[in-house]
């Protein structure tokens, strides 16, 4: 079922958690609500679920207004960051819960419930834990049980609130790949909240980037990553270097280097910042073309198969980070303290006036 979020507003006292957000989430897709903490993503998810009441606006599932439906009538599956499994029930009882609390008329037979629960436990590859208690399972296992429990009631939409947030890095990476495969199998419209841009880009069909209660950008992971709509999205989606630039009639200059910026063709001598990702900087040992940016190698960090250089230039306040493969790095033969020249392979220039407040992209 498609989800429609229509001009939703929510305040907590003076804090505006969700600020007039409208979204259309197509049927069968896995959408990530991505944003820093306090961006309103979890509140929005809870409003979609009915766990929180919006101050104004509407929520529709498949064209049907759900705004005044009680959470228990909305037919949502909700997965909590800290699992929220029922501690006093076995894994089997947890997964069966949504079926056993149905009114007698709608409740499946004991045998049907048993079959369904065991099928779901097989789906999440944990059928052998049926008679254990949640406390006897690892975090990753608990979250899979929580997911099975949410799926047992055949929800119209599946909502996941930072589902992997409480897990360690390795389990998190495994589980999100697993979630992606699971979603490809069951195709229920799903929304998950995350502050981890890598997770959002890897798992989802669509990414909605939120900040300060507003939607900054939405699109496929590729669109959002390759064409960030504004400086905030650029910074939030990964490490980025900022170069001071001047823009004049469609050309940005950083030192001796000129970059065409056709989107700013009517700008006259304006201060701007060029956003360039570490892997989009070409590092040269000599200035052959004559227009590269001069820099000094400050430090060399080998991280597994790749190398990160930190370089100083006069066109940036901070140290510039450049990433390359170990192989490329050997070819350059650079040492700490050497001179180097930089050329951006790709960049995005934002005029100073649309510079958003600084956010530490992680």
């Amino acid at each position: 079922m498609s989800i429609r979020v229509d001009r939703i507003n929510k305040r907590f006292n003076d804090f505006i958690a969700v600020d007039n957000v409208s979204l259309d989430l197509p049927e069968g897709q896995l959408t990530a609500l991505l944003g820093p903490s306090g961006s309103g993503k979890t509140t929005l998810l809870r409003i979609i679920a009915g766990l929180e009441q919006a101050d104004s606006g509407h929520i529709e599932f498949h064209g049907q207004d759900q705004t005044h439906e009680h959470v228990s009538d909305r037919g949502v599956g909700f997965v909590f960051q800290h699992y929220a499994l029922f501690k006093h029930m076995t894994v089997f009882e947890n997964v069966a819960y949504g079926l056993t609390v149905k009114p007698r008329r709608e409740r499946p037979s004991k045998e049907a419930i048993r079959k369904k629960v065991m099928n779901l436990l097989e789906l999440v590859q944990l059928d052998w834990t049926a008679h254990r208690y949640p406390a006897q399972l690892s975090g990753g296992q608990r979250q899979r049980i929580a997911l099975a429990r949410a799926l047992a009631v055949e929800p119209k939409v599946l909502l996941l609130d930072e589902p992997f947030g409480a897990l360690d890095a390795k389990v998190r990476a495994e589980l999100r790949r697993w979630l992606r495969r699971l979603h490809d199998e069951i195709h229920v419209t799903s929304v998950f909240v995350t502050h981890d841009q890598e997770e959002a880009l890897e798992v989802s069909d669509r990414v909605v980037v939120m900040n300060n209660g507003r939607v900054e950008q939405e699109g496929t992971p590729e669109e959002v990553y390759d064409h960030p709509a504004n400086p905030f999205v650029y910074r939030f989606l990964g490490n980025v270097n900022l170069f001071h630039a001047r823009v004049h009639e469609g050309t940005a200059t950083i030192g001796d280097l000129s970059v065409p910026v056709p989107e700013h063709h009517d700008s006259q001598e304006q201060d701007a910042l060029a956003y360039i990702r570490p892997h989009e900087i070409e590092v040269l040992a000599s200035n052959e073309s004559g227009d590269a940016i001069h820099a000094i190698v400050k430090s060399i960090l080998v991280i597994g198969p790749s190398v990160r250089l930190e370089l100083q230039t006069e066109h940036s306040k901070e140290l510039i980070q450049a990433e390359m493969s170990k192989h490329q790095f050997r070819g350059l033969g650079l040492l700490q303290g050497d001179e180097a020249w930089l050329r951006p392979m790709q960049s995005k220039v934002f005029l100073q006036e649309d510079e958003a407040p600084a956010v530490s992209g992680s």
Partner: protein
Amino acid sequence: MSELNTSAQATPVQLNRAAEWQRATEEPEWVRRSLIGIALAFLSAFLILPLLVVLVGAFEQGLGVWYAAVTEPDARSAIRLTLLVVAIVVPINVVFGVTVAWAVAKFEFHGKPFLISLIDMPFAISPVVVGLIFVILFGSQGWLGNWLSAHDLQIIFAVPGIVVVIAFGTMPFIARELIPLMQEQGKQEEEASLTLGASGLKTFWYVTLPNVKWGLIYGIILCNARAMGEFGAVAIVSGRIRGETNTMPLHIEVLYNEYMFTAAFAVSSILTGLALVTIAIKSTVEWLEQRTGVTA
């Protein structure tokens, strides 16, 4: 002294790692022994000794005298009244305790700290004052006295008054037990239950209540124990009518004042017996809680 000897005999080689480790984190042996000793001495002097005195006093003149004392009509009336009051008060406080704990733990509202300190008030006020408050409120000369007598209702010097003061005095036990427990558990499990389609009532029954089960039982036991033993406030509002409004503690006092020591001790032994049963149940609950706490 023997302690000194053994440690003197132990050569460094004999000390294993565990013992050394203990040494670093624990007090010396003599400190531990004397602390435990002091605690035991206190317990013996103030708890076990009186208990023995009660039992010896009760059975000193033989089982027949004891039996006669506890089956005498006034004694039976006191026992019946005490059990009746407990049977009314404990359910009232269960409902009140669960309601208040639910409100405090699951909702945000203004004046929450004030409400929590209000709950403690019965502990802070002297029982005699509590009794007087209710006499002033419900007595025939009291604020509501005219209205009550017009409707032919008697609260003071009757069973309702006893129920009211005991309910007041034992009010905090269950709420106090449940509030921290519910606060710690938060409301995520309830929210999960609601998203799974369960109604509020089913959520309470299947999720909330089992989660606080042990705390609730513990609170009921404490409430029960205190309700049986309540004296000061009851003494004021009951009017001490023999065979009618005397609870067990009051009846014991009457007997004692009339120099009927054996009878007083006999009734005391019943009250003490009930208390001991309560403590036994409490210990069993704690033991069960620990055991299930490991697996669940």
